[in-house]
């Protein structure tokens, strides 16, 4: 029995350039496009792939913290700017920290399941380069518990949260092994990004990626157990995807073969005011993946492609375990052995993930979905991986905060 009461499809995915340090066109002191530009650019990127944009019923915009980075609220007010026929149509802005995009695609799907719409345009967006990283760290720390954690927290609040996870893993599984896994994660992220022109690390030409990944941490200016290369990028960018019912696909003029079916999702919420139960696990991500597999009635081995939320390299390793591909404590070996590469057992983060493509926070969940769908449709260009006939599925898992808000979603070739 299908998890949804009716079929839901995803199509017409689009990612803008992820702009920030690393891109040749980026200069911190030069003017850059604002958040409305990315909403429009991403939205148009999607609707240019369909025949009848006027058939789009609603919009959902995922965004984390534009009020601080851009001094801009009321983001749904930018939806009618995307296309003239969107004027006076419904649009909701959704927030769930770095999983804002994940929640946005969930809301899009729920709206269709509720029979309130046949077609929803889902846009994720964030502009973060408006301030220096030290102030951005303040804004992003809102994904933690402000009154309970921030004062005692590190200047770079979230990097430190995951540095603590890395430290716990070093102690439990061996520092050398985990560090090598983290560095290999970095290598894979950059190598994949080099194949994807919109990626922030597309221009990266460093010939010694592994050695760079192994750069010793400098706790005086950053974190105890991770270096800056272990971190996702500070990015400006947007992603968009159209979700539709069977009827909706017809209305917008998209053939089923150009869409993928959404098989199931699991949205799991942990308590922001309690510490993670185990620093060496992404417990909430694991629950989300398990529920998603059960709801889609598949196993990890049925996936041909995976997108995980590698906000830090250590999160990537733990996410591989949470997704059921490596046993507890074995994520580092799994990655070091090349099993998450484009040619590996489970190609992961094929356009570079949050470290290679970039991490425009509110857009990331949508971007992950876009990349899984592109792969399943065979439209991933130089990043394309083999989609086995017996493995027609792909999964994305996006995370907000320190394993607090998680969405795992499974897609299938039509």
């Amino acid at each position, binding site marked *: 029995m299908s998890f949804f009461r009716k079929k839901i499809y995803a199509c017409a995915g689009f990612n803008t350039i992820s702009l920030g340090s690393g891109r040749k066109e980026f200069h911190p002191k030069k003017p850059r496009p604002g958040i409305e530009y990315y909403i429009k650019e991403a939205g148009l990127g999607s609707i240019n792939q369909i025949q009848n944009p006027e058939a789009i019923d609603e919009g959902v915009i995922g965004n984390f913290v534009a009020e601080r980075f851009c001094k801009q609220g009321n983001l749904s007010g930018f939806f009618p700017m995307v296309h003239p026929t969107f004027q006076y149509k419904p649009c909701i802005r959704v927030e769930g920290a770095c999983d804002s995009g994940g929640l946005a695609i969930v809301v899009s799907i729920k709206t269709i399941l509720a029979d309130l719409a046949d077609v929803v345009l889902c846009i994720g967006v964030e502009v973060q380069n408006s301030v220096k990283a*030290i102030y951005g760290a*303040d804004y992003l*720390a809102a994904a933690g518990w*402000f009154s309970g954690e921030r004062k005692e927290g590190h*200047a770079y609040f979230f990097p430190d949260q995951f540095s603590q996870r890395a430290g716990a893993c070093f102690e439990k599984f061996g520092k050398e092994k985990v560090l090598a896994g983290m560095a290999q994660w970095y290598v894979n992220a950059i190598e994949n990004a080099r194949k994807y022109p919109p990626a922030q690390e597309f221009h990266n030409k460093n*010939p010694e990626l592994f050695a760079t990944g192994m*750069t010793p941490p400098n706790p005086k200016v950053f974190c105890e157990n991770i270096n800056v290369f272990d971190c996702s990028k500070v990015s400006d960018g947007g992603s968009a995807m159209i979700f539709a019912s069977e009827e909706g696909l017809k209305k917008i003029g998209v053939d089923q073969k150009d869409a993928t079916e959404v098989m199931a999702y699991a949205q799991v919420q942990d308590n922001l005011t309690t510490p993670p139960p185990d620093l060496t696990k992404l417990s909430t991500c694991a629950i989300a993946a398990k529920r998603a597999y059960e709801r889609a009635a598949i196993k990890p081995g049925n996936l041909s492609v995976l997108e995980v939320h590698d906000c830090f390299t250590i999160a990537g390793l733990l996410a591989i375990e949470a997704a059921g591909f490596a046993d507890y404590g074995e994520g580092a070996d799994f990655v070091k052995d090349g099993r998450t590469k484009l040619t590996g057992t489970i190609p992961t983060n094929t356009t570079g993930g949050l470290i290679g493509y970039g991490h425009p926070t509110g857009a990331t969940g949508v971007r992950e979905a876009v990349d899984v769908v592109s792969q399943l449709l065979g439209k991933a260009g130089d990043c394309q991986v083999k989609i086995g006939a017996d493995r027609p599925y792909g999964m994305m898992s996006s995370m907000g905060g320190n394993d607090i808000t998680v969405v795992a979603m499974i897609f299938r070739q039509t």
Partner: protein
Amino acid sequence: MTLDDRLQNVAIVGAAGKMGSGIGVMIAQEMAKLKLKAENKNKVYRTNLIDISETALDGLRGYMITQLTKVAEKSTVHLRKLYEKRQDLIENADIIRTFVDNASSVLNFTTDLNAVKDAHLVFEAIVENDKVKTKIYRKMKKLCSPDTMFLTNTSSIPISYLDEQAGLDGRLIGYHFYNPPVVQRLVEVIAADNTVEELRKIGDELGKRLRKKLVPSCDISGFIGNGHFIRDGLYALSEVERLKSTFRYPGAIYVVNRITQDFLLRPMGIFQLIDYVGVDVFQCILRVMRTHLDDTSLRSRFVDKLVKQHVIGGQYADGSQKDGFLKYERNRPAGIYNCSKKDYFMLNDKWKKKVDAKIGSLPDGFAPWKALLINPKKEDALQSHFDKLKKMDTLGSRLAVDFLKKTKAIGEQLVNDGVAASTKNVNAVLTNGFYWLYGPINNYI
């Protein structure tokens, strides 16, 4: 008196200049940290920023706030610990703002040299002119207490000379920061024979606090830094003279500048570096060294001509580069000065292509200085670059190899002359103060 005690009242003379202003930022920062300690709660701290120009002091106010903010932004990890008991300061922005407020509250901007009178430490960073420096030290000696210690930022005047002229009896040490002082890690420390032990210790302790790399140099005019840089520059100018028959003046400057930057993998070409330091400053240091070393070869008619024509380089208040040997657009070389026309020859792709063809290509796999700086296998990359360079037979490779040999010889001479105690110290100055990827005394060639 401990360093903490001395840091209660400090004066910086020549505070609005590029070196003085940077020293001011670092001292204010240290004072703000001391102020935060519970035991210092009721103490008054003062950084006296003294300069002859009221206008320059006005500009200094804004500069100090900007720089103190940058410093705070870079040290927020540490500052959060210092402010951990202030429950009202939660976000990084709160902490940075409070630190800048604390640090700027110690600043006293003045044109009155009398402000040095209560200072326990005086940093002097005025113009590099022995007569002017001597005059001001004589005045300060009269104004200050006999306990006051003096640190001079001179980059070329012997400390023993200044001490003797002003009668400071060993209360003077050379403390040569590099530009910009807040960023550059290197400080050349030059003690004269009679420099008192207490001041030597202050120099060491202060260096540690400021997280600087201290490299000792003997008290011989030019010390290690300028001892090398000035001679390197003179060699570059002699190469220009040699190459002018082939490339004419603008072309020869372009070639030597390019060889030193790209072929030798330096952060900037030699003429861009002279412009950065200031052509007039370069001339001034030449004069000081020529006088104190009694070496008439330390002169460049070409540099004299440029200064006479008011082509002096240096930087504007906002840090952008003034025109000198080269003309700058967006801080990048865009033209070359032609003395006879008293104007700049503007570079263009066609011309550059023609000249570049004459000097030949760079070795295969060339990566510029910036890329190598972050290359974790930098040593291997450098070895490979110079190995290839040696095997090539182009004008560019020959010029580069000759330059490398000359640079090494200059470094070795500094050791032989007793300016530097070791080759290690020479290399430390060039790599830390000039951001070279490798020391001049090496085995690449």
